[in-house]
């Protein structure tokens, strides 16, 4: 039995075919006005078809020429990306209840440590950058940043 070597292009193309098919199925539920043959689903169906065909072309090209590297999964790298994403998600969840200032200081501190910064530089950077961001966005540009629990001390 021939063993299929899974390459990165094979995975990419396959994922695009699946995504395109899912998008197409979703687009089938969109309605068209009674007098027209082109409705809400027309453009998404074209896009979905295009995505699936592109994926198929990538897979076929890879099968014919073996252009890409063998698919490899870097568990450590993926873990680090997931950790950074978790920090951003936590920031989004904390921004309104905790307020811009506390949430941003925490995020900057953790992210500086994450990228290899020392404790002192993380502390200084997180506080100083938060104050500068406050000045630029809140004071100069009048963006209404959430105060959260800091509301009684708003200035």
């Amino acid at each position, binding site marked *: 039995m021939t063993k299929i070597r899974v390459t*990165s292009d094979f*995975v*990419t193309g396959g*994922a695009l075919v699946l995504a*395109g098919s899912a*998008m197409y199925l979703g687009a089938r539920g*969109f*309605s*068209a*006005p009674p*007098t*027209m*043959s*082109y*409705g*809400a689903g027309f*453009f*998404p169906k074209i*896009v*979905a078809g*295009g*995505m699936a065909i*592109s*994926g198929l*072309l*990538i897979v*076929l*090209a890879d099968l*014919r*020429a073996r*252009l890409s590297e063998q698919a490899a999964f*870097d568990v450590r*790298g*993926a873990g*680090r990306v997931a950790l*950074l*994403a978790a920090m*951003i*998600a936590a*920031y*989004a969840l904390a*921004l309104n209840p905790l307020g*811009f200032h506390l949430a*941003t200081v925490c*995020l900057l501190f953790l*992210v*500086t440590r*994450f*990228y*290899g*910064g020392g404790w002192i*530089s993380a502390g200084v*950077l997180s506080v100083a*950058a938060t104050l500068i*961001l406050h000045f630029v*966005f809140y004071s100069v*540009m*009048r*963006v209404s*940043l959430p105060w959260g629990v800091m509301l009684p001390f708003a200035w």
Partner: protein
Amino acid sequence: MNILRGLTDPTLLATIAVCTLYGALVGALPGLSATMAVALLVPFTFYMDPVTAVAAIVATTTTGIFAGDISGALLRIPGTPASAAYVADSATIAERGQPRTALFVSLFAGVCGGIIGVCALALAAPLLADFSKNFSSDEMFWLAALGLSCAVFVADAPPAKTFASLFIGLAVACVGIDIAVGEPRYTFGLYDLFDGVEFISAMIGFFALTELFKAAAVRRDPATRIQAPKMEPLGEAIGNALREIKARWKNIARSGPMGVLIGVLPGAGADVAAWIAYAVSRKFSRTPEKYGHGHAEGLVDGGAANNAAVSGAWTPALVFGIPGDSVTAIAIGVLMMKGLNPGPDIFERSGEIVYTLFGAFLMANIFMILTGGIAILLASQLLRMPKHMLMPLVLALSLIGGFAVLNSVFSIWIILVLGFVGYAMILGGLPIAPAILGVVLGPVVEQNFMTSMIKSQGALMPLFDRNISMVLGGATILIWSLCLYRAIRTILKPNEINDAKDDIS
């Protein structure tokens, strides 16, 4: 005489100087665009007279568009969709230790393009207005479709992968309330998605977060540790840039007027101008294989075209009240607020103000040499920063910048999701830039197509009925067929591709 007197008014000059610096600094920050800079300026224009108010917007836009190149070159995060067209070139030049050269090339090309734009407008505004008057939704649909095809030319990836990236961007553009029947699409019941995905959030997600994820994945890999950045002396950078501009004057002479013509078409704007100019530049270049690998030629063409288009976009705004881009949409509001209702007779009604406005454009471009230079000097310090300080700052700036666009935490979720999509695309070898073009142009393509279909009651042939639409439609279909042929040939004759790869390496 009155126009000259108006232009030498110290208040007006001071406003232009301050706003060019403001535009340069805001535009240089990743996640903050020229549109945002102008939007934030609007409350201040309440207190200005009409000419000063409009001059403030013009000055901010002119440098804001250029400054988008700064974060593009230094951080590989384009500040505007226009900068995305040539970000691979500018960032690669910067990585080679010549960040200031790349930025001064952008600056000088932008100034030249801007001046060409102003001159063209002042001389030919009525003619250009007449030409764009002939454009209906049919022509706009074909023009936007033609703009999409540029993505296939500019990307340095196999055609199938470029198409895939473009369709991912178009899929993102499908999210939100449908323009034909008002039906929510792919919103998963989330009201925040009813307005679709805002393109600034998309850009931050695709470019900024993707870079941060890439850096996170290799955080402890010593081979990928950032070296102390090399920064060439200021004099050397200016000299290099001037030599580059001098050698490429023909590119500027071609892309400047092209930018004006594209900018003058309603809805096209600086983004489309930069992409088309870059694609044309690559097509006619003697060294197309260098594009995307730190070649200044595309940078000159794209930079000149996008600043020229900024001037061009004002023609439909002034003459018809149709915004050429998002900035002129805001500007129309300010004009109306000041009692200057845009319309075909604005040259008769408010000719003095309109020509003073063109003068302000010229001044802004000249001031930009100084203020843009200051912005480059300040921003290039970014590269001296160690990675553990730079990355958190970019992240915070991107998230707060994204939040500020809609004043909603939901923007951060969009940025996060699209960051993941962008990172997955990078892992799969798909280029990012075509996806951004899809997000920007997708709604334009669909809206104009649906308008045409409603007019023709679903018949497709009327899309080719008019002369201009026939030419544009023919060109678009031809280009797309060629691209599809290239993609299929990759499968049928894979050895050619392998040989070509070997030749390059």
